[in-house]
């Protein structure tokens, strides 16, 4: 089972991100579970959402305590205590940041400018689709095509296409950065 924990702020689409991930996994014939850390938070407050992916039915209902990957939708959350709790030493961390070298205390970090890409393609500061594109590249967990289908199912018409384009661009960016890391290490 692969477990992902998404950290964001209310209004940034952290909940949708988990949903889309789960739908993409479903499209690939996997079992997936997605749910938010429910609250009455208004826009701007820190929120979490979770996604589990497995080849067999998922019975576990607790929040993701031992993530294999973290997606951090807002770099201002990095200082939050407990943000990285439970992450395995070699776990993946994907951060929405314009600074590819942004400091990250644990795990394998990848930073992509998801908000900027979202502004370019979607014209709204909703970084979730872009981050998912980068995540697909970073984790190899899902095919980009599945992600596109999931995005289009959630956002019909032009909005879906724009989000898919953002995801593609972020995927490209991630590949480039990972290539750069690989050659640097």
């Amino acid at each position, binding site marked *: 089972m692969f477990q992902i924990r998404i950290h964001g702020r209310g209004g940034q689409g952290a909940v949708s991100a988990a949903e889309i991930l789960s739908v993409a*996994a479903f499209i690939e014939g996997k079992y997936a579970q997605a749910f938010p850390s429910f609250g009455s938070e208004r826009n701007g407050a820190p929120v979490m959402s979770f996604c589990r992916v497995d080849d067999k039915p998922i*019975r576990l209902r607790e929040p993701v305590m031992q993530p294999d990957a973290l997606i951090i939708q807002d770099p201002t959350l990095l200082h939050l205590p407990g943000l990285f709790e439970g992450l395995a030493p070699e776990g993946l961390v994907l951060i929405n940041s314009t600074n590819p070298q942004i400091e990250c205390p644990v795990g394998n970090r990848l930073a992509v400018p998801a908000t900027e890409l979202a502004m370019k393609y979607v014209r709204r500061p909703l970084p979730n689709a872009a981050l998912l594109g980068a995540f697909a590249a970073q984790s190899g967990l899902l095919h980009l095509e599945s992600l596109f289908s999931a995005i289009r199912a959630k956002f019909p018409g032009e909005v879906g296409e724009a989000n898919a384009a953002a995801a593609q661009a972020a995927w490209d960016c991630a590949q480039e950065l990972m290539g750069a890391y690989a050659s640097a290490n």
Partner: protein
Amino acid sequence: MLQQIEGSRAVAESVALCRPEVICAYPITPQTHIVEGLGEMVKAGRLKGCEFINVESEFAALSVAIGSSAAGARSYTATASQGLLYMTEAVYNASGLGLPIVMTIGNRAIGAPINIWNDHSDSMSVRDSGWLQLHAETNQEAADLHIQAFRLAEELSLPVMVCMDGFILTHAYERVDVPTQEQVDAWLPPFQPRQMLDPSAPLSIGSMVGPETFMEVRYLAHQKQFQALARIPEISRDFARAFGRESGGLARGYRTEGAEILVVALGSVNGTIQEVIDEMQEAGVPIGSVSLCSYRPFPVDHLRTMLAHARHVVVVEKCLAPGQGGIMSMEIQTALTGLAPNVATIIAGLGGRTITRKALRAAFERAHNGILPPLTFLDLNEKAIAREPEITSGELLCR
């Protein structure tokens, strides 16, 4: 068709397939997505032959359903927590009048203090209202139980509430197989009311019954629960035959063969419990679990059979009788009268408090080692409690 959808959506789709004729709704977290989904389906013309009414309170919601059901229309509503309490007068009225209304409860804690998260205090508060109460363990089961509920309700002329954990199930995306309209039409016949309001065959529904007959009316309601006890497994089996999967029934065992410890719980927490069961079994502990689906009628004989051979029965409950302990535990203890198992209660998850594998495992290990107290509150923040001025010298008055 297999879909990856939100639990609420799965329920809305299943309810729509049952061809409801009147849906009345008042929003309350965490049920909102269900009724929004149904409202949209009606307005967009996907769900035809259905009146969707936005009412001014939960009391009005169930009352509208009472009127429409008495007039022969298949009726549905949904609520939770405070809303269920607000309509409690109507809840008793619906079962007393024998109206086969189906209602979803998105289980949520009752205030004060106000809390929008999951526990079972709401449906527990009306456990003796005469309604049938079924609990879903997964979103698939939540969807399926609604289809079974309409058939059960209409056969017995009794309302049914389908309980699903608020947020944990209602707001979780997971894989659900949503049946086709043809499948449901073949399985769920049109509503044939036992009695209804009809100017061409007039009758008075809702008379005043005095002391000379009230006992008998209530005795018949009592008997009705036993009829339900017989029908629920039959309907579940019939559903499995038609739709190709297990869901519903009275209670389901998991690795109960030869188990010395049996854990009993309602709803979604059973998933987490089963993970712990597997871990512990791997470590050689003879432990299993029972997921109770029918809470009303309470399947006394069935549970006796399932639990009789255990040394320890551990009841994990998301509700509390203050000053007493567990609610379900008391019913289980009564059911096990004269049998060997000792029953311990774990109060967990109140107000949506996370129930972790880790905490459950620790508690079940204690049961295995014979040191689980009769009543435990899982993951209690001892420091927060010790701050309370009523507690002197750190000594707790209760266990």
